[in-house]
């Protein structure tokens, strides 16, 4: 997304810095989500504190981006593609920050979970987590390559995230039905599942912002929705 064509060099530098910070933020968020998923799958309680602490780095970058954007708006009154970059960067950084928050929440749920969680539950979470991580990686690549086709593809793929979420929720519901004593654990797992799905929604938002940045138009039509599964 970088561009150095501005007559005023400092303007180009400001836009470049926004781009650099957003990429940095994307990469941190990607690691954070990967770490949180790994902690859940491996039920690694040791890593939780570190993941929780790392969230502040993402928050700090978002604050820095917000600040830079305010400066660009007041100094440059950006137009056309610069306006779209500015607006989209602000929106994308907010979605990344929310994904970071959700990863943190996922990690925090590892602490109360038992280490002998049934395989089918772990597997369904892994499938969902893998897909959402792939979606995040893809949307960040699409941003780097300025690819609207990829943005559309990712946007459409959220349907699969919804489907896997429903499956995982079903697994948890079955688990709960087996023994009501599982209630507390099941509640934690439902939160984990829902948080991963919400991260997927923010990725869809990023795909929409990216599409607007490139095309200057909004992605049309209702968001694809996964099929609900009756438990």
């Amino acid at each position, binding site marked *: 997304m970088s561009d150095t064509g*501005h007559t005023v060099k400092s303007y180009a530098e400001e836009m470049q810095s926004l781009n650099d910070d957003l990429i940095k933020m994307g990469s941190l968020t990607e690691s954070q989500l990967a770490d949180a998923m790994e902690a859940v799958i491996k039920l690694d309680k040791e890593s939780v504190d570190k993941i929780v602490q790392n969230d502040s780095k993402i928050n700090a970058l978002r604050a820095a981006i917000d600040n830079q954007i305010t400066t660009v708006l007041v100094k440059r009154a950006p*137009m*056309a593609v610069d*306006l*779209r970059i500015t607006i989209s960067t602000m929106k994308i950084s907010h979605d990344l920050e929310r994904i970071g928050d959700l990863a943190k929440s996922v990690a925090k749920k590892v602490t109360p979970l038992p280490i002998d969680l049934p395989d089918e539950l772990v597997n369904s979470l892994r499938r969902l987590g893998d897909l959402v991580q792939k979606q995040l990686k893809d949307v960040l690549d699409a941003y780097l390559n300025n690819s609207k086709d990829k943005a559309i593809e990712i946007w459409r793929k959220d349907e699969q995230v919804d489907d896997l979420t429903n499956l995982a929720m079903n697994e948890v519901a079955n688990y709960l039905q087996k023994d009501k004593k599982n209630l507390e654990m099941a509640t934690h797992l439902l939160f984990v599942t829902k948080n991963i799905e919400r991260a997927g929604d923010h990725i869809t938002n990023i795909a929409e912002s990216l599409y607007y940045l490139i095309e*200057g138009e909004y992605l049309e039509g209702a968001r694809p929705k996964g099929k609900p599964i009756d438990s």
Partner: protein
Amino acid sequence: MELKNSNIKIKSKNLNVYYGNKQALHNINLEINNKEVTALIGPSGCGKSTFIRCINRMNDTIDICRVDGSIEIDGKEVNDKNVDVVTLREKIGMVFQKPNPFPKSIYDNIAYGPTIHGIGEKKDEMDKIVETSLKKAALWDEVKDRLNEPGTGLSGGQQQRLCIARALSVNPEVILMDEPCSALDPIATAKIEELIDDLKKSYTIVIVTHSMAQAVRVSQKTGFFHLGKIIEVDTTEKIFKNPANKMTQDYITGRFG
């Protein structure tokens, strides 16, 4: 917002302008809607002022200037030999970059136009024209107690509004503004922009401006000129959010040359 194609006030077709051997405008095809503000933007020397000067035939005053092609107002050819230029300019007021009031009283600045066009011969009629014109230009309250003082004694922003009032005094249909705020401070500029918003209800306005922000604020349609050609015309919103032409984008985002 879609471009309105009906309701066209001014239409140029294959308009070419030459200053001696130099061609200043190339095949300009542009439609200006009635009771709307059209902004013309582009780098210095791109032909936007030359274009608006074709609308009221101000280029006639330049000996070496030659115009061909067509420019119509309400479907009538402006360049037709039978057109009376004085009547044409009564219909089309013009405001320039630098306020240029006559070295006369505020009252006489307004009364001058109607007098030469034979309007308002009775004192009370002329008083009414002066008051109405100054009110329309949002200047009346500031000058009503000193109408006999010289117009040149007003502040820059007031002088510019006096010039707008002077243009309005002969009941024009079109107002051409050639960078009307470039010599004004932000407060005076805001007053002119507020006035433009108000005037567009009754008049067709064409404004040449170097301020992108001003074009966005005041106009509904924007045309981008470059090297004597019109590169892109669209709704102002489209031009400044998502222009179709790369040259337009480069110009408005400051990536030119």
